[in-house]
């Protein structure tokens, strides 16, 4: 490594940014070298997104400076950042859902009066090949699966990154293969001299892909690991070190889920079957059914994992159970009662809950307070409403309890939920469904965007709830998490269940085969 490479390409110096009630960035300094992949870590609400939004011009800092190639730079808007060659994938999708993928790509990058679709198409083709993905340029972004949308987002950022590429939790919606290929792309870009900032909550990714790691905690920079500190150490030691930095020394080695599988299996055998799907089928736009003869039986207190590559019918299955989608045929039973014709609200009353993976779209109403969002699925119901009158005191109290229980980082329960960091918002979405007698809960990627500790808390919560008799259906693309939390794991492929395995360590390969339809 010569001197030139060690000189920072971009430097953020003493950046401070406060929002009402919180200092999101407190004199943070952060530097980027040419050709490095720099990992930014920190718990939910640590200030990562805020820091990179300042770099990308979306936020103006209260104090501090940005230095590019040794010269102080004025970044007053995203335009300035893009012109300086800084491309960003934001944590919350920033594509226009009503426009096509190609139109989104041309937005801001097409500088001439006429739109040059031919040119854009060519460039998009290059970039999809670089990323090794396939996206229909004429599809409306709103119609894409979340994983594909994220890929489109990455392509858009690559479009204008000549100096820096910032990725704020880009892997939360990608498949394991997608993550690996993104890792390779980042390396390739770094080799070409780009600096990459990569934010993630997955320590494995951080250690695999990163050259350097910076850790934030509660708005402050609390540590930096140089490449030399990272090599020659065992992965587990490194993880412990990082976790200690992220959460403070006391919580090092946060306990993995103690599942005690054998005892639980015996206990489960004695529990009654309380939830069944029989031959459920729903039709899509195409000739193939989206769900094709799904039959499942769940016992009281069981956690059934659903594995599968994104877009193989998992979301639709969740929506069928929640009541948001009509069936073509088949039955859904709770105990022995047919419920497939009941409305969403009726099913809610019966204890069927759905934790959506779309926390911005269906999950929350951004402009409303945390308190209202915490009861938004129970509008008009007691005790939050009496006759038609809203009872703010009761709702606020309820929200405060939830905030305390879930450890949500927020000044108070009255702020708009959109001001929460992504992970903290997720805590509300999960907490809300667990309140008031859940019987069957469908979790669709419940840990997406959560820091390691919170993720463990949520998984433990699911397992705990199950022990107390709540049946859980856990949809996820993370095999580790499925194996640690589930009793059995069903694999979905093209709308069918291709296999159900008892969950134990070491079945990853088997699951992987089922997921790609190889052994179906």
């Amino acid at each position, binding site marked *: 490594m010569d001197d030139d490479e060690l000189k920072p390409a971009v430097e953020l110096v003493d950046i401070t940014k406060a929002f009402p009630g919180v200092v999101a960035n407190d004199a943070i300094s952060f530097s980027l070298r040419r050709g490095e992949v720099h990992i930014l870590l920190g718990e939910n609400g640590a200030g990562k997104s805020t820091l990179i939004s300042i770099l990308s011009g979306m936020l103006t800092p209260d104090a501090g400076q940005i230095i590019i190639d040794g010269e102080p730079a004025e970044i007053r808007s995203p335009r300035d950042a893009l012109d300086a060659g800084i491309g*960003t994938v934001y944590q919350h999708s920033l594509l226009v859902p009503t426009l096509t993928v190609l139109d989104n790509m041309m937005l801001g990058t097409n500088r001439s009066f006429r739109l040059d679709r031919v040119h854009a198409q060519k460039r998009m083709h290059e970039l999809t090949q670089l990323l090794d993905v396939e996206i229909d340029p004429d599809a409306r972004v709103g119609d894409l699966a979340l994983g594909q949308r994220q890929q489109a987002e990455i392509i858009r950022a690559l479009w204008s990154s000549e100096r820096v590429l910032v990725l704020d939790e880009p892997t939360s919606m990608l498949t394991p293969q997608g993550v690996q290929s993104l890792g390779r792309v980042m390396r390739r870009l770094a080799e070409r001299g780009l600096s990459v900032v990569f934010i993630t909550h997955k320590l494995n990714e951080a250690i695999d892909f990163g050259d350097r790691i910076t850790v934030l905690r509660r708005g402050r920079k609390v540590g930096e690991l140089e490449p030399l500190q990272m090599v020659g150490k065992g992965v587990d030691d490194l993880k412990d070190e990082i976790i200690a930095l992220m959460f403070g020394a006391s919580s090092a080695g946060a306990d993995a889920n103690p599942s005690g599988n054998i005892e639980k299996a015996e206990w489960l055998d004695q529990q009654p079957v309380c939830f069944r799907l029989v031959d459920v089928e729903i039709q899509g736009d195409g000739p193939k059914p989206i769900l094709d003869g799904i039959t499942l039986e769940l016992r009281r207190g069981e956690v059934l994992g659903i594995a599968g590559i994104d877009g193989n019918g998992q979301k639709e299955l969740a929506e069928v159970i929640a009541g948001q989608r009509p069936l073509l045929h088949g039955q859904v039973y709770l105990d022995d009662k047919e419920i497939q014709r009941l409305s969403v609200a009726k099913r809610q009353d019966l204890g069927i809950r759905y934790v959506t993976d779309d926390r911005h779209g269906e999950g929350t109403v951004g402009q409303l307070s945390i308190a209202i969002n915490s009861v938004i699925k129970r509008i008009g119901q007691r005790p939050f409403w009496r006759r038609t009158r809203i009872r703010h005191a009761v709702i606020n109290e309820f929200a405060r309890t939830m905030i305390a229980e879930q450890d949500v980082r927020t000044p108070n329960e009255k702020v708009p939920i959109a001001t929460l960091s992504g992970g903290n918002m997720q805590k509300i979405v999960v907490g809300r469904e667990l309140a008031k007698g859940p019987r069957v809960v469908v979790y669709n990627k419940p840990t997406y965007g959560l820091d390691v500790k919170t993720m463990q808390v949520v998984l433990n919560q699911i397992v705990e709830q199950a022990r107390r008799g709540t049946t859980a259906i856990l949809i996820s693309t993370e095999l580790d998490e499925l194996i640690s939390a589930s009793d059995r794991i069903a694999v979905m492929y093209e709308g069918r269940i291709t296999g159900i395995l008892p969950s134990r360590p070491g079945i990853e390969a088997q699951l992987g085969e089922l997921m790609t339809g190889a052994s179906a």
Partner: protein
Amino acid sequence: MTDILSTVFLASLLSGGVISAVPLIYAGLGEAISERSGVLNLGLEGMMVAGAYAGFVATLNSGSIWFGLFVGGIAGLVVSLFMVGLCVYLNADQIVVGIALTLGATGVTALLHSAQYSKSYPRLPKAGVLSIPLLSKIPVVGVGLFSQHASTYLVLVLVAGAMWFFRSTRIGLNIKAAGDQPHALEAAGGNPRRTRTVAVMTAGFLAGVGGAHIALIGAGLFVPGVTNGAGDIGIVLAMLARGKLWWIVAGAGLIGVSLSLTTALQLIGLNIPIDAVQMLPFLLIIVVLFIFGRDSYLPAALCLPYDREAR
């Protein structure tokens, strides 16, 4: 009953229909552009009134209809600057500001008119027409459709141009993004506020021209209330058309004909209540849209002020 079907009756019905439809198209087109960028422009009627008055004064003094239309456009644009300043930059409530602008412009023009022209009530000479060769000779429909003031054809060209503009230009794309996801536009390097400014000013200009068209070509004079709610109809048209610009033309045509139908029926002595006839086209539009308009939409960020740092 033969009267109703007589050629003269039909021709004048059509011709009158077109004359009332054209300002509605100007207004509806302007509103559609503004809405597409995320600004619900309820000041449209005010911009039309301003355009009608300013255009009238300009033509009266210069003798040129085209100059009057242009000045009318500028007047509409000036009124729209209030909307830009208050709503786009100061994030004031679009509905409140829009209504205030309409009331304000109506009042101011009435005042100016009574101060200047209440004694003389000047009228303008009848506007010349542009007869399209051959087509204007078609019996019945020829005169009505193809022998009108050139501004009539201009507005159709503008509608087609706007469609091309939205599909094929950078600014058109930016306007769509500003109305649907302004943060996405900003993140991509665009400027939502500037984009909305362009859209609202365009709407103001078009509404102003439309207002002037009413005064100069339709009525041949200015009196307070000469626009007679054309701006509000324009808003309804844009809302119902939901982004599909040709629907504005179709809707305006329907309403125009029915407006002239009321007059025509009264002329031949059939006394059907005006309200009943005027209601018809709206019912029709709603039915038609119900059938064909399902895949259209209103911009997601319509009526929402934009602030980069808020989330």
